[in-house]
């Protein structure tokens, strides 16, 4: 099970955080800060896995963004890389060649997409098409009733 997922930039700015375990806010901040520092300190040629405290961190860099998942010991690290890649593909499809700015300005959409892919720390849908369909349908429901209230 995934314990949490973080997206952050090369400068160490947090872009998205999704927690599937209950921690006090203070601890979350501490973990985030320490993990970002640790991951950013690693060289590009190193492997994507990091044993960190009692979790196994799987991370991958896409352009300027790091995607970083904390998994439990018995989870398949290589599959987690596939999961990260799947999420990136979905973001890319949704935004149309996604970049960091898309995720900054539409962070809520990035969360919505993640919530259609992963639930409670486990993968819920293996079809890209189904995820995008669900997002599109909900966007439509949102636009129909109240356009402009959010943005």
């Amino acid at each position, binding site marked *: 099970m995934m314990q949490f997922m973080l997206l952050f930039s090369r400068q160490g700015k947090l872009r998205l955080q999704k927690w599937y375990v209950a921690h006090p806010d203070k601890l979350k901040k501490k973990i985030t800060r320490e993990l970002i520092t640790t991951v950013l300190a690693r060289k590009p040629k190193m492997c994507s896995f990091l044993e960190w405290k009692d979790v196994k961190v799987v991370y991958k860099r896409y352009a300027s963004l790091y995607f970083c998942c904390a998994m439990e010991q018995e989870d398949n690290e*290589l599959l987690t890389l596939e999961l990260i890649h799947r999420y990136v593909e979905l973001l890319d499809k949704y935004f149309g060649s996604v970049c960091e700015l898309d995720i900054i300005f539409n962070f809520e959409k990035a969360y919505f997409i993640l919530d259609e892919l992963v639930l409670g720390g486990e993968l819920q849908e293996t079809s890209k098409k189904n995820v995008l369909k669900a997002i599109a349908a909900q966007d439509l429901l949102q636009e129909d009733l109240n356009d402009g209230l959010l943005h």
Partner: protein
Amino acid sequence: MAYPMYEVDWSVLPPEQNRRFNPAFNIATIKQVVNEAIERVRMPTPTRLRDLIRQIRAARTAAEERSVVNKECAYIRSTFREEDSVWRCRNIAKLLYIHMLGYPAHFGQLECLKLIASPRFTDKRVGYLGAMLLLDERQDVHLLITNCLKNDLNSNTQFVVGLALCTLGAIASPEMARDLASEVERLIKSPNAYIKKKAALCAFRIIRRVPDLMEMFLPATRSLLTEKNHGVLITGVTLITEMCENSPDTLNHFKKIVPNLVRILKNLILAGYSPEHDVSGVSDPFLQVKILRLLRILGKNDAEASEAMNDILAQVATNTETSKNVGNTILYETVLSIMDIKSESSLRVLAVNILGRFLLNNDKNIRYVALNTLLRTVHVDTSAVQRHRTTILECLKDPDISIRRRAMELSFALVNGQNIRGMMKELLAFLERSDAEFKAHCSSAVVLAAERYAPSDKWHLDTLFKVLLKAGNYLRDDTVSSTIQIISSAATERQAYGAMRLWTSLEQSAVSGLATEKQPLIQVAAWTIGEYGDLLVSEASSAISMVDEDGVDDFVRPTEEYVIDIYQKLLWSTQLSISTKEFLLLSLAKLSTRFTTQASQEKIRVIIDTFGSHIHIELQQRGVELSQLFRQYGHLRPALLERMPAMEPVAAPHRDEQELDLSDTSPDHTKPDQDALLDLINGSDSLTNGDVEHQPEQIATTNNNTSSNDILDLLSGLDLTPSVPAAAPAVLLANNNVEPSAAPAALLLDGLFAPPATPQPPHPADANERNAAGAEWERAVLERGGVRVCVSARRAAGAAATLTARATSQLHTLTDFLFQAAVPKKIQLDMMSPSGTTLSPQGEITQVLKVTNPTKTPLRLRIRVSYNIDGTPVLEQTEINNFPADLFN
């Protein structure tokens, strides 16, 4: 009338001509539209989300950013006072962005709940997002959100149900899980695949939080595997996996689905290309991996189930395309399953070969996974893994810490009697250059391996000396005592050899100023030279070869004066710890009876005298006492400072300190007597030198265990027949505060040499602790398969805390229950005896840990629990780092 009467016009116009008339409008929606219109006029439109993000990004300094954020937060707070704001969702969205930047945003929690309760979908979507990000496990808020969730789980819109399920899955507390389990169970049975899959994962999380709730989901779960939809299949498999790991009964219940799983897997690999689930030519790797993992759990220790999956595993292992990461993902999972179930031997060969290929792969990730898996399979087939030894040792030099860590653990698993010399050479080289975080673990693993497989005594001692030299202060404390024990029981020429080797290291460290970094080495060297100093300076030991493995003999026999000069340098150094100096001081006193020249005697006396005014009370005490042996009690000196008899190793019932090691062979303490002493020391947390007077039964306690070694040294040098003249100075030496009299002397010896047979009774210090205790802190730290470990923490007097671990088992009887714990170096941990090693259902094992934390660093506790369920060994490990911050105040 000045204004045209539009209302009148409306009513007369037929509906089809009136563009403003819409029959879909009911009174409620009209009201809502009117309210919103009024609102928009009355309240100025708030900053748009993207404008705020732009403003924040434009801020050039942190202070500027803070001022933008503070202004916006103040505004957002002010809008929250409005009863029914249409802009609420926009304001919350902005708040969520601000929260991500690290600013406090908890004041938006209740607003999120208001959004969730709103009928608008936008509001709900943002409200639930906010709830997932902002809500903590606070009771009051959780009650409110439980009601909202309950409503939405019954909604007619699938996406509203979806949002509620998603939120429940992310933040379910045990109370929420209990309250909403039946709703989730109903939704698993929904015909709608979108809701079904989400409900299945919700059930998974509910069972994780509250394992008792599993039963109710069982009937609905099995049918999930008959679905075609991959989302439902994968969530179903995830749910079943969790259930099987939860209880062996459920595991048996699900044994019958093995054929179903095999069929699904077969369809996946045999079916042609399906664009929807294809990943680089592999059909739904996510589902494949989940099924492989469930098969592994179902086939473990079950010949029949294993038999049913042999074929499919072989098919997956041979048919999977390995040029891409995704193929290797599946192979990796397949290998794990093959190794865990009772698979055919040909299949195991296939699996080990796959790992061999992995190990040579160019991709670092694959190599990492290979090392990881080899470690898990090394117990199954050691010889197969041994073949890759050279490659594995090569990985010790990898620049990547993750690879090095894996390689280190695997290397230690591969050490045996045949390869110990070669392996140790590599591992000692690794120890020397390794990162600080590896040194403690690596050095104790080297010590253990050397102990188990040492080809000769000399080699064993040499290895220990190298570890002392290379691990420096990272060495576990017990290595000092175990090394001393080995030297003390060795043959005389070995002891001389030890003294000579250690002298070289001691002298080099002292001269190069590195002694502070290598205190365990100094301690062992001081002890050895003190005991066998006569052999060190005597020409008689020239016959002993000092040629090392590289063919170099760098030993120069020192003069007595030079040895004392080095001692003086170390003793007068301000950097060495008190306990190291205690070793040195006592050793120096012993040297006075080993060395023969008058000049060295005099030098020793002068150095010892200087300690008579040492600022540290313990050292001062020793200085004064030892000085007496040069004056008034000079005739007693040779008898008191005689050579130690050989010590006997003993496996201690409890482990105290630092890194954990699973091996059961390491002697934690050198002497049974010391255990008795340690128990006493453990029982006297609050004991300082001044308190001893009131507790004469606890005499001979000091604040640290290393010094107790020395006391023992002194005492065991005595003839143990209780003769009064000998006992009197013993009291003088051993105890700082008790008046020297014959009566406590007899007591002292009783207490020291008759170790208590029963576990330690409650300590007198407990009463104080109970008074000083604040609110008790308690958390469940491990919960797996009905076995639960709770740790509670209570403040104790003086920068200390008492932790109590309670283990309970719901269903099974656990045997060989062993609880181990480790804390950071700056903190001292004393473990009491556990209440038992066998845990029956409804029973409980408690283990008390005392933590002393003089520096008040945040407490981190790593615990490891091992036990047997029906003969299957289980090992669980976790780390607790959320202790209350004020635990040591």
